[in-house]
């Protein structure tokens, strides 16, 4: 049964709320600004009260109501949260937890719990307004005290029907509805409301003026009862109150009906839905409350909850299911241990040192020709590798979390813009270094907002262009040759190249008459001070967009490019390094010096040649493909003569390839990236340093920069053939 499931959800939720309440209570002392904690506690108790009311858990509602009242006064700064009160509230928390537990076990009220309630309520009394007398009164309004006398009060469904004026003309007779209801259960009480029957000439003999208030004792479900009125539902006013509805609801219902409230009140009393005393009290209290705005606010939330109860069961089930999933996810998050990033960095650093030290031990062992020692170092080496992988893994987080945040943003922003947009997420399980993920949030946000704001067209325009009215935005993450690629793609209007060119010239970013490829034009949007938005919205278009995005990405040693087709869409592609700390390297030698190329950028190694046309072109023919190359010896101005047989390491970054010419290839090894000092920051082609097992220092090559250099030198030499390999 759905209700059971819902109750389980309530229990789960209540437990979590109570945990939050406890945490807030305990954190109060070391918290400089307790306001948020107090709010959290109030919300926790308030929500528990509301949900408990839904399930008719009167003891919980009664108890929580008083705790909530006290919290409300604390929140309103009418009383201070002193240590004794914190103590009592902690006890109240424990008691609520017990009440929830007994609910779970199916016990209405555990023995002795009433006494604990009384004692705690007594303890709270001094903190209540007018020492609790007034609060007690409104507590009775929220739920009637459960006592033996109340047992059979509202076992019945209360139905209130005002038939529409055309019901009779449409061939239906209210009498038959009543007779049919009589077959569903027992008509405990019924009253006809005929006050609307006009006198004299206004009377239409074929009009229907009948209203019925009836109490039905039945086991039938709400749907069955509702279905009875299926054919008159449209023009008739039908209200159905389930058994055990709160007095508030009867009162609200009375107020909503056009008839005199006394009359309806009496009908309800006659139907034993409420007692005369309760009615009297409730009406009086409600009137008094109307003046006290604060309380009415709180009450309204309760009403909303109840109104939820009136929606058809499938909707409720779906909502609860969703809520449950969210809670499961939360529960998963609870299993995570939070570690300070600093500690993690220190660990990764140490592991890096260990890797280096291990390499030197390996080298020594290899030269010692000591069999058992070699064996031992092999085992140690394997363990070190595993530790390295795990330590690095600690820093890796799935990008899915970041992506999921965008669901909400896309929803909100698209609503604000009045566009209908669907977000698709792929590759959420792709792992990235935590530092990178954290710094990626802002640029991604910018890109996504841009896509919604400028990219995706309005529904009308979309339809005019023959696209589905709902725009689609996709977030994509995947591994690609040693880097992580994150794509934000929309199926919107694309970038207007003519407009970009015009703007770029206007802003002085570009000289007039410059010849640019399509890709180069679209990538102009990353230039500082560039914005093509015709209207400045509060979302984007203030001209501080894409250049900031590029700067952020640059800081992560990544790159961003844009691919856009007019009227078909735009894709922003961010390329990021996998990690910032340790890489698998490929060691190459020039003279006596060693250099390291990140292994995942290495495509292949070959002997230098054959050249395309001549060696001076700095181009080789790689199986029919034109490949620009660089002599590292020239780049780094190394003294000495190159050996007779030079080698080429073919590297790739993104879509671009180039050859690096070196003296010798020295094989793969793991290495820890050490940043270069400030002095070397501007040296081109070098990204970091590392210490070799022998203690020597080796420079790590910055492949993207070198590829750029190679392409540039290719350009300088004016070779048209180059553009075929330089696609970006």
């Amino acid at each position, binding site marked *: 049964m759905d209700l059971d499931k819902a109750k389980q959800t309530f229990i789960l939720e209540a437990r979590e709320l109570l945990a939050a309440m406890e945490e807030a209570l305990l954190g109060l002392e070391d918290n400089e600004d307790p306001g948020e904690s107090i709010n959290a506690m109030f919300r926790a108790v308030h929500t528990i009260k509301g949900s408990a009311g839904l399930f008719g858990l009167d003891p919980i509602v009664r108890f929580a109501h008083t705790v909530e009242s006290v919290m409300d006064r604390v929140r309103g700064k009418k009383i201070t949260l002193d240590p004794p009160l914190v103590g009592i509230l902690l006890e109240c928390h424990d008691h609520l937890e017990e009440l929830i537990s007994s609910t779970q076990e199916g016990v209405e009220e555990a023995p002795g719990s009433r006494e604990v309630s009384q004692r705690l309520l007594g303890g709270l009394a001094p903190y209540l307004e007018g020492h609790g007398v007034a609060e007690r009164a409104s507590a009775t309004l929220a739920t009637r005290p459960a006592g033996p006398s109340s047992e059979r009060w509202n076992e019945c469904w209360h139905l209130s029907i005002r038939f529409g004026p055309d019901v009779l003309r449409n061939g239906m*007779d209210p009498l038959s509805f009543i007779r049919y209801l*009589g077959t569903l259960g027992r008509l*405990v009480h019924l009253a006809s409301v005929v006050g609307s029957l006009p006198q004299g000439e206004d009377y239409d*003999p074929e009009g229907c003026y*009948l209203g019925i208030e009836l109490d039905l004792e039945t086991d039938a479900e709400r749907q069955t009862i509702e279905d009875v009125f299926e054919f008159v539902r449209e023009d008739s006013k039908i209200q159905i109150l389930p058994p055990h509805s709160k007095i508030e609801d009867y009162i609200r219902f009375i107020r909503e009906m056009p008839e005199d409230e006394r009359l309806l009140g009496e009908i309800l009393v006659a139907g034993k839905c409420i007692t005369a005393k309760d009615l009297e009290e409730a009406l009086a209290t409600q009137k008094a409350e109307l003046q006290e705005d604060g309380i009415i606010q709180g009450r309204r939330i309760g009403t909303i909850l109840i109104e939820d109860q009136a929606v058809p069961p499938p909707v409720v089930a779906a909502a609860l299911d969703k809520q449950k999933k969210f809670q499961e996810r939360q529960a998963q998050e609870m299993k995570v241990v939070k570690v300070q990033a600093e500690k993690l960095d220190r660990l990764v650093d140490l592991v890096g040192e260990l890797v280096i030290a291990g390499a030197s031990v390996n080298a020594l062992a290899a030269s010692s020709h000591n069999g058992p020692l070699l064996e031992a170092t092999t085992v140690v080496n394997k363990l070190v590798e595993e530790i390295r992988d795990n330590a690095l893994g600690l820093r890796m987080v799935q990008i899915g979390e970041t992506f999921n945040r965008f669901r909400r943003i896309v929803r909100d922003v698209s609503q604000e813009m009045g566009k209908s947009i669907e977000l698709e997420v792929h590759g959420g399980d792709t792992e990235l270094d935590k530092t990178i993920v954290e710094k990626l949030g802002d640029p991604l946000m910018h890109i996504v907002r841009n896509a919604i704001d400028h990219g995706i067209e309005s529904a009308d325009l979309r339809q005019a262009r023959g696209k589905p009215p709902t725009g689609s935005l996709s977030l994509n993450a995947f591994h690609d040759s040693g880097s992580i690629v994150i794509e934000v793609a929309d199926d919107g209007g694309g970038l207007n190249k003519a407009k970009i060119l015009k703007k770029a010239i206007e802003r002085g970013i570009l000289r007039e008459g410059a010849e640019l490829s399509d890709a180069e034009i679209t990538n102009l949007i990353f230039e500082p001070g560039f914005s093509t938005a015709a209207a400045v919205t509060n979302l984007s278009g203030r001209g501080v967009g894409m250049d900031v995005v590029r700067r952020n990405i640059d800081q992560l040693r990544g790159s961003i490019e844009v691919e856009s087709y007019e009227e078909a869409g735009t894709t922003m592609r961010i390329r990021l390094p996998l990690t910032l700390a340790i890489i698998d390297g490929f060691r190459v030698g020039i003279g006596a010096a060693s250099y390291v190329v990140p292994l995942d950028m290495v495509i292949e190694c070959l002997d230098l040649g054959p050249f395309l046309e001549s060696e001076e072109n700095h181009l080789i023919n790689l199986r029919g493909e034109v490949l620009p190359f660089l002599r590292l010896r020239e780049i780094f101005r190394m003294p000495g003569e190159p050996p007779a047989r030079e080698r080429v390491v073919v590297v790739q970054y993104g879509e671009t390839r180039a050859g690096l010419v070196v003296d010798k290839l020295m094989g793969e090894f793991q290495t820890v990236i050490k940043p270069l000092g400030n002095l070397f920051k501007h040296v081109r082609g070098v990204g970091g340093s590392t210490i070799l097992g022998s203690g020597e220092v080796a420079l790590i090559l910055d492949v993207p920069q070198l590829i750029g250099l190679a392409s540039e030198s290719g350009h300088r030499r004016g070779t048209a053939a180059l553009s075929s390999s330089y696609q970006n």
Partner: protein
Amino acid sequence: MLSYQATQHEGRPALKLKGALTIYTVTQAWRDIPTKLAKHKSKVLDLSGVEELDTAGVQLLLWLKRDGIGRGSDLVLAHHSPEVVEVLDLLRLAAVFGDAILLSPSSTSGSRHGS
């Protein structure tokens, strides 16, 4: 169909309804009854011949009763047929009409629904 017959009730002129007082006949009845009552100088409606009564019929009776009150001439409903009693009972309207309902032996058994 609904037909009318002038009769006596406790020595006073009465109008007896015969047939069904339902949505199908209610408009006609609404036009006829006041005229016929006036013609017979009658203030009593004899319901013993009502074989069928629906909500429209009940409303008409209530309207006649109230309008009668409005003109200061108390209309009395008398000799309720079992069918009429059943409906008034179902709608709990007997008290609203306030007429004495004489329970005939046949109507006592099946009429008191629910409570």
